[in-house]
């Protein structure tokens, strides 16, 4: 099983002992995210609503939005791959 790197956004690092990057052994994106929340359970509710990824959470495999990847969350990961978790930033007037 490949060990890949996951980069956490600033707001979620408090749930990974302030680590910006964590190493997870996983074959697919889905697998990586499941193992991530198994290792850091407090992340679960911030990444998922039920079994679905929260709408404000974006997952990239290197430079590719997983939602645009042909295999989606079943995309196979190579050892050099990095998963980036990027929050949706928004705001503005009332």
């Amino acid at each position, binding site marked *: 099983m490949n060990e890949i790197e996951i*980069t956490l956004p600033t707001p979620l690092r*408090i749930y990974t002992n302030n680590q910006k990057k964590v190493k997870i052994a996983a074959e697919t994106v889905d697998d990586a995210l499941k193992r991530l929340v198994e290792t850091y359970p407090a992340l679960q509710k911030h990444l998922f609503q039920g079994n679905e990824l929260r709408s404000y959470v974006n997952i990239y495999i290197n430079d590719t939005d997983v939602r645009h990847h042909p295999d989606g969350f079943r995309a196979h990961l190579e050892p050099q791959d990095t998963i980036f978790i990027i929050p949706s930033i*928004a*705001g503005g007037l009332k």
Partner: protein
Amino acid sequence: MITIPKHVLDQIFAHGEEAYNLECCGALLGKNDGVSSVVEIRRLKNINTDMPTRRYNVDPFELLKVEKDAESKGLELIGIYHSHPDHPAKPSKYDLEHAFPNLSYMVLSVEEGKAKEITSWRLKSFQNREFIKEEIKVMEEKQ
């Protein structure tokens, strides 16, 4: 408290004035060693096309690129700034609803095209969704 060099603060003001009457937004890049210190900013495109005078949305891929670039310089994303055209420098309910903890949110008021006031806020936590105002300490620079 968050510190910011005077010339960087001026860049935020200039961005708000150039974007007027649209909302501008950008990334605050710096360090967080107990005190948040802005080192530089990066302008971000407001991708909101429905109400760009009243809303901003950041392209997550652009944010990803900015974060990678910041990391290469030993910096990290420590906050976001945005403008409120012809409205006070206070976060709105919408700002609060979309905020994340552990980031500083600077809000710049721009009145009739002129940047007036900037404030900075931090969300208490995911569970306790309340903004706490933080002091902005402007670091004057020697010529």
